[in-house]
């Protein structure tokens, strides 16, 4: 390639490695902590800094650590319930936001936005004070309630943005062809939202599973969800068992993601092309 040809191309085309270098650097910055966690979970000695040999000791410890496993389970339970509840409520809210008429939707939009931008510590503390005032003992369900309050807003925003792109005429067409108003929604709008609903549900699951702040303010004296347990472990001396727990959490989210993706594919395959015609 001649020097002239090389200098003709735009900046990044002349030195493509620059773009790659930056990408790798940013990805490394984001994923390095995760990589370190995974690496040291396999450490044979009790150090988070010096790596000795590869060993599965800490995983063994984790699986024999009763309280740790209970916490994992509790977190998962809370996440599933919160995800489903906030998916339902958030979707209903999204419809209200999109179609509530000028007055309704402005208010709804404003309030959801407010919920999203308010710092979680503030909302969590406020929730705690409310529960105390109402003389409600903090327990499993108060955690779920706190999570649902948080996740619904996210679900609503995600579903609403997809909803606004859906052609309203398809609903009218469904009604024109004999479906009642709700039937039209179920048969025509919800299928178009399927992918978004799955994504929103997953988002809610992850938000709940991983949540610390709201959980801290709404958890009672029973079994602690995983993030709280790890936090308390961190204060009393930490072993790579924590790393193992982190890797297990990661694995759980990966499993949920894969299962959902597979589920969507299977459902989609079954729903299409059921009408046959006579030739």
């Amino acid at each position, binding site marked *: 390639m001649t020097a002239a040809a090389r200098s003709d191309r735009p900046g990044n085309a002349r030195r493509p490695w620059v773009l790659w270098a930056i990408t790798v650097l940013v990805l490394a910055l984001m994923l390095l902590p995760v990589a370190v966690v995974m690496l040291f979970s396999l450490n044979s000695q009790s150090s988070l800094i010096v790596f000795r040999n590869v060993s599965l000791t800490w995983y063994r410890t984790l699986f024999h650590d009763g309280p740790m496993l209970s916490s994992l389970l509790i977190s998962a339970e809370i996440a599933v319930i919160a995800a489903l509840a906030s998916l339902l409520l958030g979707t209903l809210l999204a419809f209200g936001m999109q179609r509530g008429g000028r007055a309704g939707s402005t208010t709804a939009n404003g309030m959801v936005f407010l919920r999203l931008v308010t710092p979680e510590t503030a909302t969590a503390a406020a929730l705690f004070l409310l529960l105390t005032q109402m003389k409600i003992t903090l327990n499993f369900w108060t955690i779920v309630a706190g999570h649902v309050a948080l996740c619904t807003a996210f679900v609503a925003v995600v579903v609403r943005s997809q909803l606004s792109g859906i052609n309203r005429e398809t609903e009218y067409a469904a*009604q*024109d*062809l004999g*479906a009642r108003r709700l039937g039209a929604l179920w048969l*025509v709008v919800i299928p178009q939202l399927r992918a978004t609903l799955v994504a929103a549900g997953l988002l809610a699951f992850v938000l709940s599973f991983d949540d610390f702040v709201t959980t801290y303010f709404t958890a009672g004296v029973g079994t602690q969800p995983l993030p709280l347990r790890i936090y308390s472990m961190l204060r009393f001396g930490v072993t790579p068992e924590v790393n193992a727990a982190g890797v297990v959490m990661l694995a759980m989210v990966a499993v949920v993601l894969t299962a959902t993706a597979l589920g969507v594919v299977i459902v989609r395959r079954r729903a299409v092309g059921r009408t046959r015609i006579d030739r």
Partner: protein
Amino acid sequence: MIGVSKRFKSQYAVKSVDLSVDEGTFFSILGPSGCGKTTTLRMLGGFITPDEGEIRLGGEQVNSIPPHRRDVNTVFQSYALFGHLSVADNVAFGLKRKRVRSAEIRQRVGDILRVVSLEERAHAKPAELSGGQQQRVALARALVNMPKLLLLDEPLGALDLKLRRQMQTELKHIQREVGVAFIYVTHDQEEALTMSDRIAVMNEGRVLQVGSPSEIYERPANLFVAQFIGSINALPGTYRDGIVSLDCGASITLGSSGSSGLSDGDAAVACIRPEKIMLASPDVPASSSVAGTIAEATYLGSGISYRVRMSDGATAEVLAARGAGQVPSVPVGTQVDLRWLTDDCLLFHRNSGQAIGDLAAAVDTAAGA
């Protein structure tokens, strides 16, 4: 529809509309954007409730019957196909709502897809089809239910010209074949003229005229209709004592019935279609003509279109079709006389647009009687 009106906020979108469509006919509602044709269609479909008046289907009042229970189907402008369903599922949708038996669904869906030439693509998804094919799916999906009335909301707007022409012919054939009454809404007057058995012309919420294509074209009831359909020359003039004197020099004598409702000094407009004006040499004596000069000549292949400048500075468009023999084209700058038959001259009040009937005799020049 009898006396139907619809208001949005304080504005009338549709005012006192009376329309009657016969079974099995192709009826068009024609008008510019915002004239109320879509609102009228939505009221027929049941999506909007009229504020005043009645809508009757087969003799029964249907004002309060919602769309899903009305025996009317719609083809929407955006087609509104269900993207997550196959073509066959889309078409079967209405039949499934009515709980028709599977065997019957299979047969009817197959039949209608044959009518619209889409059997081969029965299991494709809408996204895989071309615009023209999607439009045909929308049509099949509505027609398979054999409704009393099919409403079409400017369905050919998104197609290119050639495809549009093709679909116009196909739609006409399908309507004849299936025998369902079509109500077709459009702003394209050529489309309405070629496809319809009858046309209703609307503007600003009102129906201005209802008639067959030739009635609308030859005998427009008012100025708006005359100017909206095809091209026309509008020559302004003033009325005095039974004669309308046009600014370009000619004058028109009104018939003796005196029903024109004109008073002295009223402004009027004489309208003549370009193909009805004849060019004549000014040397040949005649009792009736308007003098002018050829300003422009445009070769159209099937004829020549002339712009003729008249004495008041206004121009008239004259279309000279080429007949079987050779017609020599008239060069620019030639002095000519414009002549037309009395019957071909349409007279209207300039302000109200109302038609003035009963013209007598031929065109006179102002100079001599």
